[in-house]
């Protein structure tokens, strides 16, 4: 069957009713940003529309915004929000657009205006003495780290890779990455910010200067940032001070053209391994030992099939590699794989870390995957670039079907997360066996370890891929997401969305107990018209 016929069959033409902005509101917005920075032409706004992932969650299908505005400053953001709030219009600020829209940052209702923050793209300050940067929303992790690496520093980058916005990830509750073992997760690196409330008031958090003292309990920052993304928070962050860390990659040399950039030389004090463990228990022990030893610069657990897609430049190449049977024979389930990168700041420390790491490998039954090295000689370089630079990470893996869905995830102790991975993997495998998801033997739970053992924590996400053009697969993803919530809570764990649920409140909000109740009241106070965060933040209630 031809591609075009096949796609046409499964996804019917949908012509949504368009919500057109009243003329006076459009003119008011245009007066703020100028005529070049607002559009309601459907041929242009349709480039912002979202699909499929929204269908997975049962929200937001085939919706494009009635208009898109491009503010160029905090004052313009505030003025826009005042107009929208006054007129009961929903608003969704977006940065680099990434994030499986509309999961975190997409249109969910027909009257939601997109506020594209692309014009706010400056690195305002790099303070190496106090180790922080101040950035605007559209600066991406590549731009920031590209500048920081040159002067010996680096910034936490989340799993999706260098095109994410550090401001967007830092100002939300989540945001793990492979470097989290050294740099913590995104929310931990928040030092201060400039925030525009839903009603359009500008507030600076962090005093004196850009430093904001985090403390136990629910902080003001926690209240406004919400859980994740603009759909899980309130208002718009327009500036953010983020903690930075020393970069250990000095001495690297790269050559070649896209897509084959080669690392002729790794960092002088960096070394990476791709390790295979006989079982999840061995890997869990390994994580605890790494924690105790306080070593490591970047580390992640990745599924074997996912690793094949990561290591190859095209689906054709991945297909050939999978056809060799290497995954099943060498490192597929029940085996578990982890990439580890050591980064040190003196020769002595480097030698120490390598020695300790190798001893931990021995004690935890880790082995270097010789088969993989032989099949794919560039494995070393890919793992190095994956861990040191986070290049092509999620994008590389998700080229298989083009998109991904994040199911149950958790930040907890290593044991809890490992149990969760197994539990959810079993559920996922049923769908895989029915041909409804990428078949990974129940794997594809990626995990990143964080905070060098301060909390003894691991973050796991169960990620799966379905074919976006296949309605049956999309519906299967939806099915799995909701089915998985219940057993997860039966095991005493809070679902990924649990703490911040809005749209999902009736189903899983109960797991968050009083936090959820509290959030509803907060929402009523700051955003009683529910202009922001209408699916992943608690909703305002009349009786509060």
């Amino acid at each position, binding site marked *: 069957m031809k591609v075009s016929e096949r796609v046409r069959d499964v996804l019917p033409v949908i012509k949504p009713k368009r919500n057109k902005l009243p003329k006076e509101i459009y003119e008011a917005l245009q007066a703020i940003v100028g005529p070049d920075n607002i559009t309601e032409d459907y*041929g242009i706004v349709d480039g912002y529309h979202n699909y499929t992932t929204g269908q997975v969650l049962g929200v937001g299908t085939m919706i494009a915004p009635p208009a898109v505005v491009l503010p160029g400053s905090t004052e313009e953001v505030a003025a826009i929000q005042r107009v929208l709030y006054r007129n009961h219009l929903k608003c969704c600020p977006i940065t680099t657009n990434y994030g499986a829209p509309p999961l975190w940052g997409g249109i969910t209702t027909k009257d939601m205006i997109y506020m594209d923050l692309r014009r706010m793209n400056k690195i305002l300050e790099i303070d190496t003495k106090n180790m922080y940067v101040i950035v605007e929303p559209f600066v991406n992790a590549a*731009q920031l780290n590209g500048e920081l690496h040159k002067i010996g520093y680096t910034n936490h980058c989340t799993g999706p890779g260098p095109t994410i916005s550090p401001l967007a990830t830092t100002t939300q509750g989540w945001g793990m990455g492979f470097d989290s073992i050294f740099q913590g997760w995104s929310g931990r690196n928040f030092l201060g910010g400039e925030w525009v409330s839903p009603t359009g008031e500008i507030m600076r958090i962090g005093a004196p200067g850009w430093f904001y003292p985090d403390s136990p309990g629910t902080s003001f920052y926690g209240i406004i940032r919400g859980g994740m993304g603009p759909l899980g928070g309130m208002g718009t962050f327009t500036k953010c001070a983020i903690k930075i860390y020393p970069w250990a990659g000095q001495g690297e040399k790269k050559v070649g053209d896209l897509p084959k950039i080669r690392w002729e030389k790794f960092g002088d004090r960096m070394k990476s391994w791709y390790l295979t463990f006989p079982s999840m228990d061995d890997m869990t022990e390994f994580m605890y030992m790494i924690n105790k030893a306080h070593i490591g610069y970047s580390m992640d657990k990745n599924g074997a099939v996912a690793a094949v897609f990561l290591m190859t430049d*095209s689906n054709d190449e991945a297909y050939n590699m999978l056809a060799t049977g290497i995954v099943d024979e060498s490192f597929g389930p029940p085996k578990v794989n982890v990439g580890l990168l050591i980064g040190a700041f003196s020769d002595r420390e480097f030698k120490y870390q390598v020695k300790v790491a190798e001893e931990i490998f021995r004690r935890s039954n880790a082995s270097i995957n010789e088969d993989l090295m032989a099949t794919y000689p560039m494995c070393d370089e890919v793992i190095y670039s994956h861990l040191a630079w986070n290049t092509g990470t999620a994008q590389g893996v998700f080229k*298989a079907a*083009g998109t991904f869905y994040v199911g149950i995830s958790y930040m907890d102790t290593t044991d809890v997360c490992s149990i969760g991975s197994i539990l959810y993997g079993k559920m996922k495998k049923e769908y895989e066996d029915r041909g409804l998801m990428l078949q990974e033997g129940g794997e594809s739970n990626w995990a990143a370890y964080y905070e060098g053992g301060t909390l003894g924590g691991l973050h796991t996400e169960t990620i799966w891929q379905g074919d976006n053009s296949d309605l049956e697969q999309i519906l299967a993803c939806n099915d799995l997401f909701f089915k998985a919530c219940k057993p997860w809570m039966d095991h005493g764990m809070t679902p990924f969305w649990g703490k911040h649920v809005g749209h999902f409140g009736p189903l899983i909000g109960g797991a968050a107990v009083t936090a959820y109740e509290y959030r509803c009241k907060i929402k009523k106070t700051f955003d009683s018209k529910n202009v922001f965060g209408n699916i992943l933040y608690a909703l305002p209630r009349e009786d509060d």
Partner: protein
Amino acid sequence: MALQDYINDMMRCEKDSVCKFIPLSIFDSKKYSEICPSIIRYNFHTYSGSGRLFHALGFLRGRHDYSDDMINMVYNCQMCGGCDVTCKAVRDLEVLETLIEMRVRCVEDGQIPDNVLEVIDGLKKENNMMIEKKADRGKWADGLKIKDLAKEKAEVCFHAGCRFSYDDTLWPTLRGAVEVLQKAKVDIGIFGASENCCAGRAYEMGFQGELVSFMQSNLDAWKNAGVKVIVTPCSDCYAAFKAWYSRFGNAVEVYHITEYIHKLIQEGKIKFKKSVPLHITYHDPCHLGRLSERYEYSSPGKPYIMDEQPLAKVKGICCVYEEPKPWRRGANGIYDQPREVLKSIPGVKLTEMERRRSWAFCCGAGGGVMQSNPEYAQSTARLRIDEALDTGAEALVTACGWCERNFRDAIKSNGHGIEVYDILDLVLKAI
């Protein structure tokens, strides 16, 4: 191929914005970290590669129809391929193919900007993209002793291309190139007034029928004249002959003049005698670099017809086609030969720009933008000239008449202080 045959690519875009930026692994500075001239200028996501995929999907789904803004968006893109190679550095989507097919669809539906139509009318009537008379095409060669391929046979056809043939400021370069080749005893000829347009630029403007028709005329003319090899100083023509013609099933042996001169230097047939003391930077033309990769298949000679191939399911999802896709990711463009020619000229000091080789920034002239929106073409050129100036170079050297003209126009309108040369100019100075 038709627009709907890329629907799978449209649906597999994750809006991750990799199409807008230079990948981190080859990144030098924030200042020069963006690769898409269109999103830089117009800011709305729809102007990026990703936005254009979503837009095309919406169009096919019937969610929107043609409008002035939509047509402007479709045509305000240089088709430089920057989005395509940066996307393919991590993903496996055919971004540029989709963009071209969107224009093909616009042409089929008669939705064409007036100034584009004017250029294409000129092409149909006068065989060139310059809105000039066909009879004047060979004027650049007046007085040169060279075989006329309309009457004689030669092994090598020197194809001047529309820009070089009608832009008289480029004629000294063109005539010099012919003399260099003749001195190296290359058996060359030209078609002069009967030379046809390559139609590559017309194709990138959506006129696929014109490409196929001009391709056939060119293939016939070369065959009749006994031509085995094509040499051209024009990067647009080079990409058309090498990439676009192969896309429609015809492999042509073609060299860009810099490639051919490099070959002659290697063979000892060209030697530089004079020093050219000049600090330069080199601009990789998109059509000589990332856009010049041939479509090569596992089945030689098989045309690129993906829509007739069923999807293969790998591990339960669709991800590959039965016939593997051609490997076109920018890595196999012509990058080293121009640099080696420049480095072999005594006195020349080459300092690279940050965006170079397969991730070079466009000059702004491509995809018909120079014709349809010259102001936008020049504003893009100014961004590139700023980057060249930041290297400290005295001169910006390129290997394409379109780039050179656009840079010169931008300098004239904005007063930037940098000289612009074709590589050939420096070669001629050094011989």
